[in-house]
């Protein structure tokens, strides 16, 4: 037993201080895969890799090309275009609090870690759309990283070496996932109202708050919990709940969850997205087809498009224009103005 202890210390050592979570009030430690424990070195490496266009096949796009810090790590387009011009069919999701989702991307029940998710845009090849395209010529990517002044040391610190074995595709995905896990946003006016007490909400915002959590507007059944999505897991979760719903928005031919499961009852189901920072993540829905929050509320007031298999919870709403504006006023209290602004959340190459 004792000798095993020493082995553990050696393995987890590598001169790396253990990770300390700095969590906002009301936030709990995220679930972290056992095979990729958080370390400061991995986060520091992931920070650079996330913003580095040299990962892409033509050195043009990085993760940050579709996940802008100032837009809560989403972008401003309906759907993105990959580094070599491929159309990507779904809207780039916010990475705010991405550490806490039970499944990743818009509708994939088997993508359950950020490591697996990160590998998709990094390494997808045709017939899937190429996003970063690192797998198109991975040895060239490794050569570019190896020639850099900082990466050899960063990989050494994070993964204990840089040479024949490192960096692997897995290392890159693990470092980026570790970095993404640190993108935690919990300093909105709503949080400061709820936890800090140093902020008061306006009458309209409070009216919108009450409507949001009422059976009249019915928002909170899917957009519940502290991140306003039931697709939530944490380190202390002993169950993992899925949260895929058909919200009656069916523009386009995307089958949603059914594209993976093949089940008719999963047709047009997508993961319930978080509403935190929703003001900064327009346009909306899986294909970015709704331009404004007003358009989104109008969709729900209509009761959706009346799709086959549409959630029973999406029904016509009897909300006045004033009440619809109040709902939007409440949604804007979920904006965290400080998120995306720290050095760790900004482009490290731009800072030089």
């Amino acid at each position, binding site marked *: 037993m004792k000798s095993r202890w020493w082995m553990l210390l050696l393995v987890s050592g590598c001169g790396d201080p253990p990770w300390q979570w700095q969590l906002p009030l*009301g936030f709990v430690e995220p679930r972290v895969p056992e095979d990729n424990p958080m370390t400061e070195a991995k986060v520091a490496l992931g920070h650079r890799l996330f913003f580095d266009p040299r990962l892409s096949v033509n050195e043009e796009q990085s993760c940050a090309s579709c996940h802008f810090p100032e837009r809560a790590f989403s972008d401003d387009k309906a759907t993105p275009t990959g580094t070599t011009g491929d159309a990507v069919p779904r809207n780039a999701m916010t990475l705010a609090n991405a550490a806490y989702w039970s499944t990743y991307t818009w509708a994939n029940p088997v993508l359950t870690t950020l490591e697996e998710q990160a590998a998709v845009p990094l390494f997808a090849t045709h017939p899937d759309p190429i996003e970063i395209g690192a797998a198109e010529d991975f040895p060239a990517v490794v050569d570019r990283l190896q020639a850099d002044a900082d990466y050899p040391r960063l990989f050494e610190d994070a993964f204990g070496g840089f040479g024949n074995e490192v960096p692997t595709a897995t290392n890159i995905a693990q470092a980026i996932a570790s970095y993404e896990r640190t993108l935690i946003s919990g300093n909105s006016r709503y949080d400061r109202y709820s936890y800090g007490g140093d902020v008061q909400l306006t009458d309209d915002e409070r009216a919108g708050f*009450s409507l949001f959590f009422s059976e009249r507007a019915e928002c909170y059944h899917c957009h*519940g919990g502290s991140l306003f999505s*039931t697709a*939530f897991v944490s380190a202390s979760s002993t169950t993992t709940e899925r949260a895929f719903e058909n919200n009656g928005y069916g523009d386009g031919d995307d089958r949603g969850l059914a594209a993976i499961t093949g089940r008719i009852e999963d047709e047009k189901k997508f993961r319930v997205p978080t509403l935190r920072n929703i003001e900064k993540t327009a346009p909306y829905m899986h294909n970015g087809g709704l331009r404004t929050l007003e358009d989104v509320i109008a969709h729900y007031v209509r009761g959706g498009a009346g799709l086959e298999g549409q959630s029973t919870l999406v029904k016509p709403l009897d909300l006045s224009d004033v009440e619809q504006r109040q709902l939007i006023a409440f949604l804007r209290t979920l904006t965290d103005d400080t998120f995306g602004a720290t050095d760790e959340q900004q482009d490290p190459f731009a800072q030089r």
Partner: protein
Amino acid sequence: MRVWVLVCVIVSTSLACAPASNTIGFTAQVGELPFACGQSYAMGNASTQVTPLDFRMYLSGVQLRRDGQWEDATLADNNFQHDGVVLLDFETSQGGCDNGSPDTHSVIDVAQDIEADAIAFVVGIPASMNHLDATTQSPPLNIPSMYWSWADGYKYTKIDVRNEAIDQDFFFHVGASDCSTDDVGSCVNRHEGRVELELDPRRQSIAVDLAAMWSSVNLAVEPPANDIAGCMSFPDDAECPAMLGSLGLQFRDQAAVGNMTAFRVVNGS
């Protein structure tokens, strides 16, 4: 552990061999039929076909009666029990219960001798624990879909079915209502009630009957266009008085409707 192996060897000729834990058993039923995700049942006063989507409920305030005296039961702490609150979880995440979780829990695990002649419990979560931030709580109080919001607290029950006749879901969510968003924890209606059952927990268990909860509901009729079928504990929720009545609860300030029929004692532990 070795002791149990020995006990098991001795008694294994006739009995299923498991440590004799102090558990009070529950079985989910639809009338006389066993409940299972993926099965189809006739329910409601028009015998309409439904398939389950979810079946979970919180119990608390568990007491056992010995020699005429009620005593608070001390519950074990595990993934489904914490601080005197139990989550009964009959859904398996299979066969229609897709948005649930695979693990189930169908007992109250008591950390003391369960010799008793009656049990009492409350459907729901004590007011002092109902308005915490669910995200930061221990299991089973951190399950996202069992929680409404800080103000309203937890869903004491999340029992949902697909009404096959009209192709719509029907929800049964009991919880506190008319709660203040300014004075968190202050709710006009707690919707809590005590259930008492005479039983010997070592030889008998408790059936939780979905059909009894739905017995007042006509599932053959489509709800109005902007109404959602079910009882979600809000004012003017027409299905609520009788559905809550089946759990032995009063809806808002109304007198209890009907008798408590959702829980009954069955032989076999």
